[in-house]
């Protein structure tokens, strides 16, 4: 198990990420969408690569997708993740399908994870006082 209270919090006031962290607090996954051409993008950036517009909005998306790639970490390298092995996956969203989201995977033995497996978001408070909510991934349909 990971230790959510030990995970170092990023700067939650960073304007490029405020909408993201506000979303996870409400158990929503929000990503960026270009206001001019409608292209979704991730990770957050200031400019749309498609049309160069800097007008951006944040939209909620279904936190569902399939494992695109993953790794099983065998040796601790970060606070909050002292217990190895644990898995981290790149998950391709079901929709919009051009977006992939990185996340640690819970609710499954790391060795059982496979590319193509269906996962869904799982929201957990992190930080010493639960200051932020982290969206991790877990097998779709499994009990929390």
């Amino acid at each position, binding site marked *: 198990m990971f230790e959510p209270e030990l995970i170092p919090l*990023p700067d939650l006031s960073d304007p*490029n990420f405020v909408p993201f*962290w506000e979303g996870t607090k409400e158990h929503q996954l929000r990503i960026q969408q270009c206001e001019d051409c409608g292209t979704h993008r991730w990770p957050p950036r200031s400019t749309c690569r498609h049309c160069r517009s800097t007008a951006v909005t944040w939209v909620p998306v279904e936190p569902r997708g399939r494992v695109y790639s993953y*790794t099983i970490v065998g040796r601790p390298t970060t606070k909050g993740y002292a217990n190895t092995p644990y898995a981290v996956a790149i998950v391709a969203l079901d929709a919009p399908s051009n977006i992939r989201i990185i996340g640690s995977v819970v609710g499954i033995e790391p060795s059982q994870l496979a590319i193509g497996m269906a996962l869904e978001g799982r929201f957990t408070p992190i930080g010493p006082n639960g200051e932020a909510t982290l969206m991790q991934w877990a097998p779709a349909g499994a009990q929390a």
Partner: protein
Amino acid sequence: MLGGSHTASITGVGNTKYSKKADRSAGLLAIDAVMSAARDAGIEPQEIDGLIPYPGHIGDDILQAELDLKPRFRTTVDMGGCSAVSALRIASLAVASGAAKHVLLFRGLKGSSGLRKADRPSFLPGQPFRRHLEHVHGLNTPAQRYALLCQRYKHEYGLDRRTLGEIALAARAHANLNPDAQMYGRDLTMDEYLAGRLISDPYTLFDCCLETDGASAVIVSKRNDARDIRILSVAEAQGVSPDDISNREPFLDIGLTQAANDVWNELGVGPNDVDAAMIYDCFTFEVLHQLEEAGFAGHGKAAALIADGGIRLGGKLPVNTHGGMLSEGHQAGLNHVIEAVRQLRQECGQRQVEDARLVAVSGWGQLGDGSFAVLGGQNV
């Protein structure tokens, strides 16, 4: 004449022994390597008038003060593991333009007994989104990020652990012919490789490069003496979304694909024409991946080249005859340039590639920046 008669040359190379724990400071290691390179080039250190230090390591100020250098040209190339080969390009341009006569590329670091990689400041781009989106998920090392590439490749093309093992074993076998190598005198068997502890699946211990104390130096000059090794062509490029792997499309796209293609096109030679390749080997899979992207094998086909001794001395394409970063030492690829030069000068003794005339060198850094060079003697 390949590359034209006015190409820049590598005129001097030098290095310390590579080790887990050096008994001298990083500054003294660097000075040792630089003095060796100057002697090798047949010049006085004061003739060095251009400097390209490796960012974040022993600085050029120290070196200038200690050796009383008077550079007219100074820059850094901040491209992680492809800095060395990219710096060859900057140095070539500098000497060709007359900005400098002799440009020194150097690196000196106690990367093993001093601050190790995980404790040094990261120069990787995209730090803000990494803190928000990756570190909070326990993802924060190069091994973990590159494992994500390897795992996807494995899914698309298939990949036997023994193929990665052979890359590690070939590097070790070569290092055992190289007394300067950190792993000289230490054999590695396939059983030992397979029993290596998990680092970040599919990577286990022996898939990962070393951390090293040591220094390396290369001098690039506008000179074509008989012993000088010409930089026949050198190019660099970056992958799509160079700061991010997760949303890169195509996922396995890297800068090297374009850089190598540019070099082959400029020179009018191809992968089958080179006698050896020094491939940036931060991890085993990155060797396989680059062999494909540089055209030495088709997509999904490098395993066949690697099998049956294909990348060992005497094989179809000897790779990293010095032992690479997997077994000679981590010099951020500057040691790959040095080995290419020594192979072309036929100075490699037991590990000499017979009649080596053309040698390719690759660099890889920052999640997908790539650089590529082909070097050759005066007679090609």
